[in-house]
């Protein structure tokens, strides 16, 4: 039985080694959704971002450094760490590096209130949640960040109504679009409401990454002067963004959307799941190894 367990452990480890090789080959062959970094449009650098990412410690599965690696694999230049009402993961990030593996990490939180959620990207401290949308937005600005209405459904839009003019962005592309038509219609209605009140509002695409769907599923193309936190926040505040959903549709200024339409479609059509034969084998080996080790524990008395 010891041999069986050794074989299972070897299978699991083989999966991890093959996965690491696959990761390296992907990084060099760029078979992931093409990142827009390096592309210049109208004097601005076009950056691919996911501004709504949950991480460990919080309700996201991955720690910040693993998220940075995953973001790179998924062709993202920027991610914002936005846990609910806390910024512990940013503290953790500061222990390592804010710029990890070429990916710019932004501090943030998802201000979770009883009636609406608001992304606070670039803030240096947490913002109180027991407030109106206008007060939360003002507090986010005072903390040095930009305020983004997160996945606004009908109820959230009603709560934010009248305050969209104070908010910098609205999540036009979010995985709820892929869940059902009702959620998608609600999101459309909320975005229309936001645009009516604040025509220049930045349209944001975010994956709201937790643990069961890939990071960068929906993303934002940001037209920034350079790849620094300050420039990125300035671009969002100025509304120079295009949201991109998981079906390759863009939302935002038509001229800017035209510039990133192809990149958005490429990101949507690139399969997030199990791309590459090697990765498929790696996952299978690791899964089977873990499955076997779970069931084939040692029987102490026999051995």
């Amino acid at each position, binding site marked *: 039985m010891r041999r069986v367990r050794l074989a299972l452990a070897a299978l699991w480890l083989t999966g991890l080694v093959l996965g690491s090789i696959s990761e390296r080959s992907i990084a060099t062959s760029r078979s992931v959704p093409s990142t827009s970094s390096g592309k210049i449009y109208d004097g601005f650098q076009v950056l691919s971002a996911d501004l709504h990412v949950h991480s460990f410690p919080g309700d996201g*599965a991955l720690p910040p450094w693993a998220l940075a*690696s995953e973001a790179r694999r998924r062709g993202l230049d920027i991610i914002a760490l936005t846990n609910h009402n806390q910024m512990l993961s940013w503290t953790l990030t500061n222990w390592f590096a804010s710029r990890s593996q070429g990916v710019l990490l932004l501090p943030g939180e998802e201000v*979770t209130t009883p009636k609406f959620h608001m992304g606070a990207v670039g803030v240096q401290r947490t913002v109180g949640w027991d407030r109106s949308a206008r007060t939360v937005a003002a507090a986010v600005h005072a903390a040095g960040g930009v305020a983004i209405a997160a996945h606004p459904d009908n109820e959230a839009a009603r709560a934010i109504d009248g305050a969209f003019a104070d908010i910098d962005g609205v999540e036009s592309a979010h995985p709820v679009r892929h869940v059902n038509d009702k959620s998608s219609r609600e999101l459309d209605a909320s975005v229309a409401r936001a645009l009516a009140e604040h025509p220049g509002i930045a349209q944001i695409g975010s994956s709201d990454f937790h643990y069961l769907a890939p990071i960068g599923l929906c993303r934002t193309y940001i037209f920034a002067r350079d790849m620094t936190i300050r420039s990125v926040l300035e671009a969002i505040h100025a509304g120079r963004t295009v949201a991109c959903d998981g079906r390759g549709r863009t939302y935002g200024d038509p001229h800017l959307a035209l510039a990133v339409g192809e990149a958005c479609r490429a990101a949507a059509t690139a399969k997030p799941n199990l791309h590459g034969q090697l990765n498929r084998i790696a996952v299978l080996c690791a899964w089977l190894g873990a*499955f076997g080790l*779970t069931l084939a524990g*040692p029987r102490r*008395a026999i051995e």
Partner: protein
Amino acid sequence: MLQGTALMCTRLFPEVEIMCAPRRAYSRLSAEPHAVSVLDACYRPAIVGVTIGTAASISSTSHVSIGLVASVTACWMFLVAIQVAAAWVTMPSASQRALGTARAMDLLFSGHAPWSLWLLGAAVWALALPISARDTRWLFASMIVPLVWNATIVFAFFRSALQLPRDAAVRRTIAHQVISVGSGLAIFGAAVAIWPRIVGAFAR
């Protein structure tokens, strides 16, 4: 023939035997002569940690690598520490039981398989279904299976392996589940900012 093979499998692997017939398995396993060191007792908790790391990596990224699985395992190892703490608190003191602490821990962690299998199943669920079909309500609802199954196993551990009276076994099982599952829920609740959501739900 088939029945004979199945029986042999359950006898060979304590995890399988415990899942199939917890009380009978614990009676048999605890009666066998053994010597379990502290290092031996760390094996099963380590496998639980590795399983969490592997399953979470697959479900959230659809891939695995040494760095990714090591990071995720290290981060989520605190869940295993909670399990160990729950066992430590709820087991009778060494003078009141026949089994040594290391052996008792090893036997208790032999019953963790329902949760580990659920995690691995969730990883397959995330891999196999398209985004549009991933209704997490069903996934979370399915947690009731390992929850009940594991509680049954923990009860069998206290009743058959530690040979406690029925009432004491029930009390300790409840305490174990409150500490282990309750801590998990409390941490998850804090992570998702449950309080504003509760306030919001009551305000509707």
